[in-house]
């Protein structure tokens, strides 16, 4: 009788261990792999977010009105700045046209594929922000119906914020660069004089809104406030999107490479409207 109970207990522990192992495997698959949403997930997500959007509209209206009111407070200061900028716009437009023309010619000669000029901009509103806490994601109100695809870069006026990871018909999930996810690393370049130094954006500290850039050779001097942008290497991010400015340069524990602290140009705490960079139809 005692032995039978002992055997039953052993079986119970064994079955429990197997169930936990299977569950962990399942969670690992769900969380770490690059899976797409199934049709049922898409339908539920779109329906719930649509109803939430309807409930949120009056609140959003009031929120926007308050924001407008605050902005109107210093409108004259802004007007003066913009007035000066408008004078420069015509010059910049002409210069831009000329550069686009030159770029087109060069592209033909070099057979280049991805440049920032070839992207279309699609504006989106943030529906909810980082509810999973550890995942560092936001949900936006544009989906496959609007031509959004997985891995498209997402920016705000100050710089890059992340990329699309999940797409449903009318909504998408954006994984922010602030994510601790090991697979979420992008290559960046630091402007040093007329040259570029390349590195990998690998970490983020909430305190001070600072990114860490690794993989930079020890023999290069990097001045403070140097501009950090995306490199365009890999398929996702086009070249030249602002990431931030150099705050501090440190040498790693083995004195072999430098680690650069970069203050992000984006305020990740306040993301309400974002822009998706869509590759233009016809360009690869």
């Amino acid at each position, binding site marked *: 009788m005692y032995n039978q109970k002992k055997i039953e207990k052993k079986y119970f522990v064994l079955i429990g261990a197997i169930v936990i192992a299977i569950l962990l495997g399942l969670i690992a698959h769900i969380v770490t792999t690059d899976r797409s949403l199934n049709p049922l997930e898409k339908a539920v997500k779109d329906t719930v977010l649509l109803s*939430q959007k309807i409930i949120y509209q009056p609140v959003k209206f009031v929120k926007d009105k308050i924001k407008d009111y605050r902005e109107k407070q210093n409108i004259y200061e802004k007007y003066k700045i913009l007035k000066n900028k408008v004078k420069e716009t015509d010059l910049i437009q002409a210069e831009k046209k000329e550069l686009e023309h030159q770029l087109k010619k060069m592209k033909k000669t070099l057979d280049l594929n991805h440049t920032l000029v070839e992207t279309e901009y699609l504006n989106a509103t943030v*529906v909810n922000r980082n509810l999973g806490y550890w995942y560092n994601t936001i949900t936006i109100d544009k989906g496959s119906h609007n031509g959004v695809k997985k891995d498209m870069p997402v920016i705000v006026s100050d710089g890059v914020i992340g990329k699309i990871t999940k797409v449903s018909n009318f909504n998408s999930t954006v994984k922010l660069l602030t994510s601790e996810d090991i697979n979420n690393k992008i290559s960046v370049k630091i402007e040093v004089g007329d040259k570029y130094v390349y590195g990998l954006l690998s970490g983020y500290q909430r305190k001070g809104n600072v990114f860490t850039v690794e993989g930079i050779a020890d023999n290069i001097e990097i001045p403070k406030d140097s501009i950090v942008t995306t490199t365009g290497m890999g398929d996702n991010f086009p070249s030249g999107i602002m990431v931030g400015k150099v705050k501090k340069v440190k040498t790693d524990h083995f004195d072999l490479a430098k680690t650069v602290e970069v203050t992000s140009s984006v305020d*990740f705490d306040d993301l309400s409207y974002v822009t998706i960079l869509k590759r233009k139809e016809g360009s690869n």
Partner: protein
Amino acid sequence: MLVILTLILSFCLDGIISNFIPIHSPLLIPLFTLVSLMIVYPYFKRHENDYLKVAAILGLFYDIVYTDTIFFQCILFLIIAFCVRFLNEWVSNNVFSISLMAIVLIACYRTLEYSILSLVGFFTFDSMYLLQGIYSSLLLNVIYAIILYLITDWLSKKYHILKVD
């Protein structure tokens, strides 16, 4: 009806409130759905299987709509539902015990989620980051738990809805 309304309202509020709070807020991260799950337990009148089913469904919705991690939150919500059941056997419901239970459950939920995510290689374990995750979720959710408890308690008395404390 009160249970359904409480859960739906809290679920929607989670998404709406997140738009007003900084993403990396050090104190005000919403977890209203989880808190509401704790508040509605006494209204199941000891029909614990129904309560577990509701917890699993709510977790699944949280998975699909908010985190894109199908079944992960579902499992976590089920574990939290078991914890709520266990805690309710030991403590009676009042404002003080509700606050205490909310703190314990939020700490359990965050620790469990973070540990599993670290275990499956989503990120490396950092105890400070975990601690930050726990205390950033406490203040707002404890306040919400107290308000929700007072409102549901008042409504249950007014409309004679059976509640087992």
